[in-house]
């Protein structure tokens, strides 16, 4: 039996010992323990080192608000988690844990030198100390600070666990299963409403589990809880434990993170570790209770100093006496009960030190009966003890005068500065708060929610239960339902009040006091006052300057103390200073829970073409393009990418290449007004385009900049087959729909996406026509020149055939229904054998098009390029009165001189430029240089030298001139040329 465990006491299973390790040492705890309660049962208070000063720290709470006792936990390979709160992590067999922020070990830590040098590390220390020399920041200061900073170690391996995700619709969601929450759920459930009750702890009951002597309706608290949970279950209420409401979002959506396996010795194989619930509730009842505040005095952070309520919880829930000889310092009645309970379980209370002048007579009497020394009107000025508190110094306060202190020996110090209602979720909804003289309470609501119990400042079980029931009824009324009022009779109630302090008065040097407010970020009262002295006026600035409340606990314990001291320093009332904003999540939440199923292969869908299986079977290397995976190139054994691409390019130029172009966006524009619609949307003229012919189409935004392009065929007077860029398909359709629905609803036009309905195979090369002809039926070849289209059969398959070229060679695009795509590809590969048909991928497609100066929208254009800038003026029909973007083409900035224009670039030394490289006119000018453009496309070509395209200011007037391209390995000299590098006369298309 562990030294501090009380036989048979608590809700732990005394017959089920559980072994675990902490910093390599094996300890025994009990089933039902947390790591913190098990360590405390073994007399271990020192659980970690603080973040900045590396001060020894122990658990200060017994719950999820814990700032100090952060540990690393390991559940095997890839399952290391830093910053787990020891007060939350349940014990299970074989759990491996370690302390953080220490080197070489927890009891002797070299980083603790920071603590001796604390005067150097005041608020704003980083901003002041590392200002100069400027060059030191990157190389010296930042690496050292980054190395020393950070809470815990990041895991280095991918998380092998699964995480689940669910939606839930419920009539009433009750957050918090303490007395108020249980009463609210009981009230709401009676009408047959769908009710969900959630609690972050493994067991429901809240504070009642730490107050077993309380009687409700004649039953001991624990029996009452058990009975009510049974009633709720019988009424069909959904009860969810280990489930934290992490955020409260618009229209009563609440995020719940449910922890499923971390407490299990042997989690079922494949079981999700956590499940994120997105709950849409008709009504929400917030019954989150209140969090106890520390008192602020020198040495309030030593191991062994903890919140009185936490000690009470360790005693009753876990059967652990946190010390044999505790002292108590408090400004609230609640700590007196903790002292009585500990005294009744074998602890010798050194003293109850109360800051208040007047204490309730019944409390004084109860203390006297137990022989406890009481010091009212006293302050605590310091503590002693390095890795565990040894004594506390108390002093009488008369008015502004602090009397002589005297030391009181103790082995732990229980403190209570009163209770802060948990306003986090309420604040997520932007609900307003009101100051009641002691703390902030919820005020104006923005959502359909009720706040009940200690969460709105009530204290004592009788009022809290009644309030919970009333909140449940109000929630029902909000749903248009009714229920009966409930009445609870509470025996042995523990009512209480208290006062809120700034830092406690001291007789010592206040400037030297290490009186902590934010334990996790090592922020002291002195830091807050310094921040105000140095000019911080807003609480948001004080917060950022001192980092108060910015640790992983988000100031659950520190916000109000920080506010009280800042307000005092500013000479303002607390509500005039205001509270910083609470943001989700309420407690740290794993990335896995947020990702849910959206990781790895299911992160984003991968679109595959009908021909993809052939590409995969034939060794294609793939690249992602938008959501598609496209064959990039087809390397033969021993080939690298460069060799493969060059071979594919040459084979296509020499004879015949075949390319899967199925990802091209396709939209059918149909209807009596189709041609009018096309005239308004695209820059080109469409009226005179005869059925059976196609044309390059250019699409602008209303601002005149290029948005998309593609070849468009007119299949009949009222039917256009539009193609778009692969990535632009959805955008173009949306844009067309927008104009059709909202600007020109009078046009009789239908728009249909057909991208996935057609498989598209491109054939290019001097032998393309010869090879294709015998396979086609239904085309009159005497009337099918370049830029023709028509419906026919190809290899016996129904097809839309386009004669066009994106390579400069004779070219075709054969569209067949997607289900025939693979059959078409196979037939063409077979028929192409005599011509050494060569499958090529997107890289070869890019090289071939660049050799001809054909642009890729989004690569050679960037949303600021007009048709004129790209040399595409010929595609703009000036005779049309209007089309989308036309008016913008005459705006002053668009017609101004000096715009960046798309040109070709050839390097003098024949080297390859980097895409994205900046271009300058004078490489010897001082830095920063004036950049006149950048390289948009750059490839090794079939012509024996690399080619590039670039946008350059006034580029069209600079033909033949030399520019410079600074790259990491030196400055390149390049000559401006036309963008058409290959067959500028277009002879090969006519061959």
């Amino acid at each position, binding site marked *: 039996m562990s030294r501090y465990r009380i036989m048979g006491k608590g809700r732990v299973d005394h017959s089920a010992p559980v072994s675990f390790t902490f910093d390599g040492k094996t300890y025994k705890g009990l089933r039902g323990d947390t790591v913190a309660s098990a360590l405390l049962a073994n007399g271990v208070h020192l659980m970690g080192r603080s973040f900045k000063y590396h001060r020894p720290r122990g658990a200060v709470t017994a719950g999820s608000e814990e700032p100090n006792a952060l540990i690393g936990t390991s559940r095997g390979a890839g399952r290391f988690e830093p910053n787990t709160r020891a007060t939350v992590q349940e014990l299970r067999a074989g759990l491996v844990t370690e302390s953080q922020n220490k080197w070489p070990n927890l009891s002797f830590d070299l980083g603790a030198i920071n603590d001796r040098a604390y005067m150097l590390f005041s608020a704003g220390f980083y901003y002041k100390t590392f200002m100069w020399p400027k060059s030191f920041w990157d190389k010296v200061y930042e690496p050292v600070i980054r190395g020393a900073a950070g809470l815990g170690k990041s895991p280095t391996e991918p998380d092998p666990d699964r995480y689940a995700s669910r939606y839930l619709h419920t009539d009433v969601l009750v957050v918090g299963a303490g007395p108020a929450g249980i009463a609210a759920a009981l009230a709401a459930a009676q009408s047959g409403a769908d009710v969900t009750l959630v609690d972050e702890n493994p067991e429901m009951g809240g504070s009642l589990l730490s107050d077993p002597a309380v009687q409700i309706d004649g039953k001991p608290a624990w029996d009452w809880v058990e009975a009510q949970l049974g009633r709720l279950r019988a009424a069909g209420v959904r009860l969810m434990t280990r489930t934290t409401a992490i955020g409260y979002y618009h229209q009563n959506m609440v995020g719940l993170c449910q922890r499923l396996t971390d407490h299990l010795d042997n989690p079922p194989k494949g079981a999700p570790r956590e499940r994120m619930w997105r709950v849409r509730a008709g009504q929400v009842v917030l019954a989150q209770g209140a969090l106890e505040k520390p008192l602020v005095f020198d040495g309030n952070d030593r191991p062994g100093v903890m919140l009185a309520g936490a000690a009470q919880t360790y005693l009753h829930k876990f059967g652990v006496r946190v010390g044999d000889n505790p002292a108590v310092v408090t400004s609230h009645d609640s700590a007196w009960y903790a002292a009585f309970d500990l005294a009744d379980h074998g602890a010798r209370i050194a003293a109850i030190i109360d800051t208040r002048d007047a204490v309730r007579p019944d409390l004084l009497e109860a203390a006297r009966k137990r022989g406890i020394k009481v010091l009212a009107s006293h302050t605590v000025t310091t503590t002693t003890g390095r890795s565990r508190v040894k004594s506390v110094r108390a002093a009488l306060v008369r008015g502004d005068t602090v009397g002589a202190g005297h030391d009181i020996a103790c082995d732990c110090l229980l403190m209570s500065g009163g209770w802060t209602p948990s306003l986090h979720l309420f604040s997520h909804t*932007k609900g307003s708060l009101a100051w009641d003289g002691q703390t902030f309470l919820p005020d104006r609501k923005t959502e359909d929610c009720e706040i009940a119990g200690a969460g709105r400042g009530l204290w004592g079980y009788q009022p809290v239960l009644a309030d919970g029931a009333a909140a449940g009824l109000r929630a029902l009324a909000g749903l248009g339902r009714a229920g009966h009022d409930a009445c609870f009779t509470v025996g042995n109630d523990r009512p209480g009040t208290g006062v809120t302090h700034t830092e406690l008065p001291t007789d010592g040097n206040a400037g030297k006091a290490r009186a902590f407010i934010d334990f996790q970020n090592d922020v002291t009262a002195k830091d807050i006052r310094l921040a105000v002295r140095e000019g911080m006026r807003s609480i948001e600035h004080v917060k950022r300057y001192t980092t108060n409340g910015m640790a992983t606990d988000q100031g659950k314990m520190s916000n109000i103390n920080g506010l009280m001291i800042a307000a005092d320093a500013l000479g303002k009332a607390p509500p005039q200073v205001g509270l910083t904003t609470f943001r989700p999540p309420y407690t740290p939440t794993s990335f896995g829970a947020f990702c849910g199923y959206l990781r790895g292969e299911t992160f984003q869908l991968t679109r595959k073409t009908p021909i993809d299986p052939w590409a995969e079977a034939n060794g294609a290397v793939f690249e992602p393009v938008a959501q598609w995976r496209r064959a990039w190139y087809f390397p033969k054994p021993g080939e690298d990418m460069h060799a493969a691409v060059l071979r594919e390019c040459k084979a296509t130029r020499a004879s015949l290449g075949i390319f899967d172009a199925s990802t091209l966006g396709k939209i059918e524009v149909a209807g009596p007004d189709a041609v009018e619609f096309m005239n308004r949307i695209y820059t080109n003229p469409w009226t005179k385009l005869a059925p059976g012919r196609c044309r390059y189409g250019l699409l602008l935004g209303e601002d005149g900049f290029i948005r998309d392009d593609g070849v468009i065929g007119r299949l009949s007077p009222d039917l256009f087959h539009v193609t778009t860029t692969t990535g632009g398909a959805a955008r173009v359709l949306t844009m067309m*729909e*927008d104009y059709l629905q909202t600007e020109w609803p009078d046009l009789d036009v239908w728009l249909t996406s057909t991208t996935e309905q057609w498989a598209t195979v491109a054939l290019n090369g001097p032998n393309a026509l010869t090879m294709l002809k015998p396979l086609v039926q239904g085309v009159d070849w005497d009337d099918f020149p370049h830029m023709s289209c028509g419906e026919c059969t190809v290899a016996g398959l129904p097809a839309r055939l386009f004669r066009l070229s994106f390579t400069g060679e004779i070219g075709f695009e054969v569209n067949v229904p997607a289900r025939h795509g693979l059959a078409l590809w196979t037939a063409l590969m077979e028929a192409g054998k005599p011509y050494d048909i060569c499958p090529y991928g997107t890289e070869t497609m890019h090289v071939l098009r660049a050799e001809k100066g054909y642009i890729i929208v989004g690569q050679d254009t960037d949303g600021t390029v007009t048709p004129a800038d790209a040399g595409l003026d010929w595609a703009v029909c000036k005779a049309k*009165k209007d089309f989308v973007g036309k*008016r913008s083409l005459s*705006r002053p900035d668009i017609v101004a001189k000096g715009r960046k224009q798309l040109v070709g670039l050839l390097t003098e030394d024949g080297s390859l430029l980097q895409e994205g490289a900046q271009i300058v006119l004078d490489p010897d000018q001082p830095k920063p240089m004036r950049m006149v453009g950048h390289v948009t496309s750059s490839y090794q070509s079939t012509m024996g030298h690399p080619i590039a395209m670039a946008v350059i200011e006034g580029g069209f007037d600079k033909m033949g001139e030399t520019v410079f391209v600074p790259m990491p390995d030196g400055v390149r000299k390049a000559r401006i040329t036309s963008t058409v590098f290959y067959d500028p006369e277009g002879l090969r298309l006519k061959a």
Partner: protein
Amino acid sequence: MLLIHCPYCEDTLPELEFTYAGEAHIARPADPSALSDEEWRDYLFIRTNARGPHYERWRHVGCGRFFNALRDTVSDRFLMTYKAGLPRPPLPQETVE
């Protein structure tokens, strides 16, 4: 996550099904060539940037329709939605400060 009412589907659905499409009731001029550079600039770029109720366009990706909405940019509440082409409705009384 907001719930948004699609006036075409007549159904209230999660925000994930919708995309924002800019300020509403800015009609494309019938004859852009008749506009001065300043007028055309205003049509292209100048927007209300309202603090409070804002008439704006949304698209229901599910049915593909564009519609109009009145949303309070402070509270992020939808005050109403209505079909494209309908006139701008007056502000609800309670939202007028």
